[in-house]
């Protein structure tokens, strides 16, 4: 069974979302709901930690495309971290590194928010 989970941790003014399992067209709504909730709280500094994510399809990447404009128009960003090689390859094949900052660690991603404040 392909399970997906989103866990959230607020660290100061940065919200970190931890993805685990399989992100495909079936599980995308869970991720969308989690992101929407963060935006509804007017929190626009978001790090998505992919450490425990085993699989992503273009449906998952589409979520980022759907939210990034609103986040950036509110002076925020969605930064990505801790990707496995498998997950990174999918982002890379679709040219995402040109539009999204991707970090090795969550700490680097959070630090980037601080350095650009």
């Amino acid at each position, binding site marked *: 069974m392909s399970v997906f989970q989103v866990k959230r941790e607020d660290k100061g003014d940065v919200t970190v979302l931890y993805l685990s399992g399989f992100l*495909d067209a079936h599980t995308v709504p869970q991720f969308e709901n989690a992101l929407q909730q963060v935006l509804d709280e007017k929190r626009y500094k978001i790090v998505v930690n992919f450490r425990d994510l085993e*699989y992503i*399809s273009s449906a998952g990447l589409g979520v980022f495309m*759907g939210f990034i*404009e609103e986040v950036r128009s509110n002076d925020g960003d969605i930064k990505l971290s801790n990707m496995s090689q498998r997950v990174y390859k999918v982002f890379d094949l*679709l*040219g995402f590194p040109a*539009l999204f900052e991707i970090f090795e660690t969550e700490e680097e991603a959070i630090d980037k928010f601080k350095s650009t404040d």
Partner: protein
Amino acid sequence: MKNMKKDKTETYRLQVSAETKNLGIVRDFIRRLAKEAGFDKEKIEQIELAVDEACTNVIKHAYRYDASKMIDLRIRIDRKKITISVIDYGGGFDLAKIKQPDISHNVKNAKAGGLGIHLMKKLMDEVQFHIEPGKKTEVRLIKFRSKP
């Protein structure tokens, strides 16, 4: 040692209802076949993702989430390649309208199915579209055992 399996042509067929909850089942099935056919880990992952993309497009665009419809997968494995046909009996689409997605612009406006088709073409060695408008669409995904 000669791999007897690779000299034979094996065919398989899987039909699932057009629901996203079946994507995991399809992936598991395809992954198992690709592994038994002797493809390496990287190729198995590529094949699995490409088939997911094709099936997702059928569910979203061909059948518009109509769970009463069926996705028909036919898999053929021979000594040179694996061929996976993802077949639907929906309305078909105009391939010319699916532009290569430009990620740096039009972030929100990626054409319907565009990301998925783009990804399929990057993951597989060949992607063929056989469309009979209003009748049947077959997306044929081919991965060679070694570079052709």
